[in-house]
């Protein structure tokens, strides 16, 4: 039986949700509405004139093979970022959870990278892999590997994925670590008495119990990979070489703020909004069924 606590009357609940509604309206619904409206026009950059073109901006975009290719790039990029941010985080959390002593120190150290802004993280990684002065690029050179993310598409993708996932590992670690602490010791001990070894216990007991956290992090990380990795890409590759790292949100920026083509840029943000919305709905509909709360 579900327990429900309800308010009497409507004034208090309304007051309580009002700030959130206000913030959403000002910072989300209003700009999103503007984007939808703008996507129907081809305006000039200064806003002096604009022509109504209906859905032509969308037609133009979807007919562009480079824009469609950007979907594939985004899919690959966000999958890799999500995996690269979640798997090491889970591993580190499991390890830190096993520590008896000084877990606090490890925890603190592991959280640090989260404080680094994406653009700064991008610059840090770029320094290490700089083809000329980068420390890691130099070591790779010593090993006989010629690192060149300026021209090699795979290496460029690898670099932006690592740089984007790095700070995110900390964030995911925190959640996994907290969730691990909440796993009842008694169940694990019972399994241990039954003779289950560590990894067996991990896969059959701990992982399913972590599923609400994993699901939450999956959604949050995909959204992160879609939207917030802009700074990393801008500082490391600017979408290159060729179009190897031009993800959808980077294209919104370059069409809108480099090309001053606000109509196309607005249409792209509408498409992006729909894609992420659909993705989240799908996740809740299908994956959440496998989540045990």
């Amino acid at each position, binding site marked *: 039986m579900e327990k429900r606590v309800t308010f009497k009357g409507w004034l208090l609940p309304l007051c309580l949700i009002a700030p959130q509604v206000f913030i959403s309206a000002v910072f989300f619904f209003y700009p999103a509405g503007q984007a939808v409206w703008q996507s129907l026009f*081809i*305006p*000039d*950059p*200064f*806003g*002096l004139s*604009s*022509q109504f073109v209906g859905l032509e901006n969308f037609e*133009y975009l979807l007919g*562009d093979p*480079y824009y469609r290719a950007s979907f594939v790039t985004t899919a690959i990029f966000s999958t890799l970022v999500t995996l690269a941010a979640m798997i090491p985080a889970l591993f580190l959390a499991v390890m830190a959870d096993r520590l008896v002593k000084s877990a606090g120190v490890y925890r603190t150290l592991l959280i640090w990278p989260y404080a680094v802004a994406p653009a700064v993280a991008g610059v840090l990684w770029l320094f290490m892999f700089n*083809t*000329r*002065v980068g420390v890691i690029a130099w070591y790779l050179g010593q090993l006989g590997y010629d690192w060149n993310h*300026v*021209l*090699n*598409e795979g290496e460029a993708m690898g670099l932006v994925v690592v740089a984007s996932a790095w700070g995110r590992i900390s964030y995911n670690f925190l959640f996994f670590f907290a969730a691990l602490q909440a796993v009842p010791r008694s169940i694990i001990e019972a399994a241990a008495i039954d003779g289950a070894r560590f990894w067996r216990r991990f896969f059959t007991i701990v992982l399913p119990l972590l599923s609400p956290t994993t699901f939450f992090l999956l959604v949050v990380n995909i959204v992160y990979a879609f939207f917030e990795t802009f700074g990393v890409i801008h500082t490391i590759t*600017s*979408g*290159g*070489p*060729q*179009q190897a790292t031009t993800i959808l949100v980077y294209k919104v920026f*370059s*069409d809108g*703020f*480099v*090309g*001053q*083509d606000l*109509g*196309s840029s607005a249409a792209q943000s509408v498409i992006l909004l729909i894609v992420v919305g659909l993705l989240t709905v799908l996740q809740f509909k299908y994956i959440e069924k496998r989540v045990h709360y």
Partner: protein
Amino acid sequence: MQKTAFGALLAATTALSPLAATAQTEIQFWHAFTGRLGELVAEQVVTFNESQSEYSVNATHKGNYSETLNAGIAAFRAGEQPHILMVFEVGTATMMGAEGAIKPVYEVMAGAEFDPDAYIGSVKGYYTTTDGQMLSLPFNSSTPVLWVNRDALEGAGIDPDTDLSTWQNVDAVLDQLAEAGHSCPLTTAWQSWIHLENLSAYHDVPFATQDNGFAGLDTELAFNGPVQVQHIAQMGEWADEGKFIYAGRRNEGGANFRAGECALFTESSAGYAGIKSEAQFEFDVRPLPYWEGVEGAPQNTIIGGASLWVMEGHEPAEYEAAAAFLNFLSSPEIQAKWHQDTGYLPITSAAGELTREQGFYQENPGTDVAVKQMTTNAPTANSKGLRLGSFDQIRGIIDEELEAVWSGDKDAQAALDSAVERGNQLLRRFERASN
């Protein structure tokens, strides 16, 4: 206690400042310079403010070229535009299309004693309408040249004074450097600007139809002609053989050259200040090479850099102030100092003369190479400059396609055809937005 003191101070300054400022007309100037260039601009502004008491210019740095243009556009939309905005040459078509947002310089200067013909033709032409009206004031202009690391040539057993005026000769030198085991015979900055835009002008072939966009918005890109394809194919071959090292889309190659790693470097003449202060080797400035045998080459190269646009929507007194400031900036003394400090071109003939009289070219040989390269021949329809909408983004497309050539994914013809096709789509959208 401290708080009250601070509050009182604040109140006092706020109360006093309008009194002090009433006599002066203040105008805003947004620019894109940081570092040494930023200091030099600040110095010009201080000199102007101290030279008279009627006007006061307030200069603000707004980020790189693209960011400054965006800041100006956003400010205009919000009704907060500055009086003077620095816009890079690539944004020229965007600004020209913005009737109602800009006040052409010839109008601003109508009352002032100002001679647009003082500016050298190839610079002025870039910012002037086809019927000769100056729309924005040329500010910093440079042109690409060939930088040579003399020590590297000597190290490979090559005479450092060898003739590098043609790409044929450069090819032979690159061979020798590669044979001697040199790891970076040639690198470049700004590949589209130097190896397509300037290449086209220098060989008197069109980069785009309609006089490179000067004659109309219905222009189409045309840089997939035989001269450009042959040049890019040759560079692709050099890249494949390790003779041309690609460092990045902007001026990343500069670090390699200044550190002495690269023997030859195609870069803006404005690279002078940086190379002079950092290079631990003997270097030379040479004219940009051309392909011998192409009819009309070498024509003249075109400029890169920025100009100053006056924005619409201010008081007449403020336009007077803007005119005074622009007039001050174009005076020979200011221009000559700017040219000598930065390596940017002396954009008025008088500034060039003054620099010569001061003996600067004798003390710093090679600093006049860029000037000669720009001014020896009268510009043709193909070498006057470029006026293309969405050009910043078209350059991005060109960068992508050239990267495909350097990595061996595409041949030169296919890459340039594709760049032309993709760029034309943007030009069509720009044409529609401007109508």
